[in-house]
């Protein structure tokens, strides 16, 4: 496995980064004496009022403490007006200088995608809410001025939730797994002085299309992805409402992610692709449709298109909570034809199909399809393939989670039977 020997650098998930994934490390009880301000329906701001201002004393730590101001970001599932909303939460903690009073504190947050270069300023994250935009652009900028001064030595040793923003309302420059640098500056408006600053990295998977994306290429790739997803949906002989919903949702989101002006053309392109797919499927040209879509995707030469397409297929496949043999066979074929990396496919597939029931068990040819054993494999290839699968599931048989163990047991049984059939 590549780690630090890889020039790109394997970065340890730690400190601020680790906080994103392990909340248990830090308490997040909101702190005391918070004033709740509602700026917009979808935006909730919780401001830390000078918690050290006389009535509540913060824990004594020296002003030279290395703790300083810290910023943490996390995402939570929230509900606003009864609609589920994924919120990006900003939490802060730390102590301000014990020597200086901040007369007119201003907290200012901004976000930029720094995935490709951690040190560069990166590409800004946009926001659709006016109140959360920079003065002269649509860039995300959240500024909070406080009417009260912050006394010297103010602060909190606990994480204080400062503000939450619905992720859906943010516009990201690119799709896929991104590193978003969130920065906070605290200034004193009385003298314009910068008091403190903190950064955090938010690792997120951006769905849909990033605004910097290669417009035309992306449009075609998305059209082909939708067609491929339709093939998966149709594999069991019936495209049902839930499958349609997944495909539609993916398309909708892709369109929505674009700036208003560019949505119409993408909308049309995707709908054309869907109409074509429907026509082809009804005319029993499923195989040709699949082959064409794969061809289009491969020609783009952009791995993220391929994996996005594969992931969409997985999403469609798992819609009904079952993985049918035909679907699994098709999935294997698609991943091979797309030339996807086996490990990445395995990781994606495992993640998506963890809760899926594999059906039916018992029929030999269907089991082979589930196991990815194909007619063109030699006996030796089958042997190696099954051993590899078996090793993986044997390891999982020792997992702490009984559900993982139970699933592995079923896999091992299926693999053993396939071995008897093919190797004897």
């Amino acid at each position, binding site marked *: *496995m590549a780690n630090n020997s890889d020039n790109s650098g394997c*970065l340890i998930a730690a400190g601020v980064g680790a906080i994103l994934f392990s909340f248990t490390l830090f308490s997040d009880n909101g702190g005391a004496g918070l004033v709740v301000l509602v700026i917009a329906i979808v935006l909730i701001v919780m401001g830390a009022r000078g918690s050290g201002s006389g009535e509540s004393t913060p824990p004594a730590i020296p002003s030279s403490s*290395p703790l300083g101001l810290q910023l943490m970001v996390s995402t939570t599932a929230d509900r606003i007006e009864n609609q589920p909303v994924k919120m990006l939460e900003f939490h802060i903690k730390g102590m301000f200088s014990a020597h200086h009073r901040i007369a007119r504190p201003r907290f200012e947050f901004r976000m930029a995608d720094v995935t490709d270069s951690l040190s560069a300023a990166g590409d800004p994250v946009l926001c659709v809410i006016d109140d959360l935009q920079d003065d002269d652009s649509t860039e995300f900028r959240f500024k909070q001025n406080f009417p009260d001064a912050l006394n010297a030595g103010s602060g909190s040793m606990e994480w204080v939730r400062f503000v939450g923003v619905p992720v859906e309302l943010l516009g990201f420059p690119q799709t896929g797994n991104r590193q978003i640098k969130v920065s906070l500056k605290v200034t004193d408006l009385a003298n314009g002085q910068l008091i403190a600053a903190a950064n955090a990295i938010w690792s997120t998977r951006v769905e849909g299309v990033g605004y910097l994306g290669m417009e035309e290429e992306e449009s075609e790739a998305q059209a082909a992805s939708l067609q491929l997803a339709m093939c998966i949906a149709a594999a069991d002989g019936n495209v049902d409402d839930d499958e349609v919903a997944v495909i539609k949702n993916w398309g909708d989101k892709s369109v929505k992610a674009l700036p208003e002006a560019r949505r119409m053309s993408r909308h049309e392109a995707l709908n054309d692709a869907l109409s074509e797919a429907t026509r082809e499927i009804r005319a029993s040209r499923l195989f040709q449709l699949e082959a064409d879509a794969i061809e289009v995707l491969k020609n783009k030469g952009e791995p993220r298109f391929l994996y996005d397409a594969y992931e969409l297929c997985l999403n469609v496949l798992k819609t009904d909570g079952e993985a049918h043999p035909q679907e699994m066979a098709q999935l294997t074929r698609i991943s091979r034809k797309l030339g996807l990396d086996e490990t990445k496919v395995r990781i994606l597939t495992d993640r998506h199909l963890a809760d899926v029931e594999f059906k039916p068990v018992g029929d030999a040819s269907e089991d082979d399809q589930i196991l990815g054993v194909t007619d063109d494999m030699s006996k030796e290839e089958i042997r190696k393939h099954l051993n590899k699968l078996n090793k993986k599931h044997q390891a999982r048989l020792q997992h702490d989670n009984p559900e993982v163990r139970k699933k592995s047991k079923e896999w091992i049984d299926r693999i053993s039977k396939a071995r008897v059939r093919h190797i004897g």
Partner: protein
Amino acid sequence: MSNIIGIDLGTTYSAIAKLDDHGHPAIVPVDGERIMASCVYAPKADEGSLIVGSLARSSLDHEPESVVKRFKRDMGTDKTYRLRPGMELNPVTASAAILRKLTQEASKELGPIHEVVITVPANFAERQRKATIEAGSQAGLKVTNIINEPTAAILAYAAQKAVKGTVLIYDLGGGTFDVTIAKVNGSEIECLTSEGDSELGGMDFDQKIAEIIDQKYADQYGRTLRDALGLTSEEDERKSTAWQSLLRNAEECKKTLSKMPTAPFNFYEGPDGPLKTQVTRQEFERAISSLIAQTEMRVETALDNLDLSHDDIDEVLLVGGSSRVPAVKESLKRQFGKEPSEGVNLDEAVALGAAIYAGLRTDKGNLKPMQREKLSKVSVVDVANHYYGTISMHRDDELGSEDLRVSIIIPKNTPLPCSRSETFYTVTEGQQFVHCRVTQSGNDETDPEFVTIIMEDAQLGPLPPGRPAQQPIEITYSYDLDQTMHVRFKDVSSGMVMERTLALGDKQSSTISVPDFRID
């Protein structure tokens, strides 16, 4: 000088062995038998008593709901067995009862027993090893070490026979299967790799015979025996007198089929009438073919781990009662092109080897001169049986993505003791904390979801503020022979360090409740 004792805590049978004054291992019989059934019985008629061994096993015929067996498979889980009102056992307390019985009986002959070595399947995970040690302490024993069953077997083998070369130990017991490859030169043993399946053994063969009979019953009476008895769950089967009787007959049938081409099978406890039939070896072998295939795959994986082929194995050594099954031997002969050797007593080798290992691990002052002399020639090098790593952020340039992955630091099969370091880097500018996690897995799994995290509450920091990202963090794991692992996370530029010693498979404070009981 205290007794030097090794115990094979088996799924279906257990055994206890001592190291005699001359340094030879010897079985200590319990209740007049060299191996003892791993069954625990809490009779309804006599509250407070707990019967262990063959008497417990034979009570399956009339009071199966009060008997627990095969609990080794549940080691490390929170499963409980309710034997009678007020008497609930779990895998640890049931194992403790076995250990107590073995040591109590042996101490009648040998005097007090304080320290023991207990064997575990090579691929037992941490939680299962910990549960085994916990069972020892609950039985009032100090478990000085645990040793992998195949390693124990090869120790016993090497003590009896001049062995030289690459040996594959094929250990198919009542409930678990292990395959270990070792380099042996006289009494010097170097384990190279182990693979196994902690849910594959002779009891699964019995189960297959029971299924054959179930089908034959259905052919005769139009419904399966399970349906006729109204059995819908494993728990129902455990409590059914008829089903338990069927399983015992199945075990006998299996033994007969190891010697004869057919075995009669008469079953009188079916609700619809008696079943007088027979099982042929062919039927049996067809039924167990997928289990045999599984063992073959484990053998191939062990060979693959070392880049060896079947031809590189000088000797295949059989261990475990279930390796008597002819289909097993035939499978090995087919794979290796030669007969496997039965150089040791299949049922006793593991306990004997454990006694030798107990001698190796005990304080030297505890040994008599001849024991010391004998053991001075013996050496064992074991390997890490799992992958140990940490969780870090991984960048994929091709995809332009970053996600959390497991990075292996000590790979499986690394000879012990060992120490390995890897350097990682901080993610963010001004990063002051590093989350230190240690993972364990049976495969070189990269997805954090499928590994066990054995340390997750540690942090390195606060590190000096204001530094750019990409600060090197050196992570060192040192795995010692006594099953402890020292981990160190070091911020290279500031020298700040987070260190911990993890007890792998060592005693932990127990949260398992212990019922009051005595052994009769």
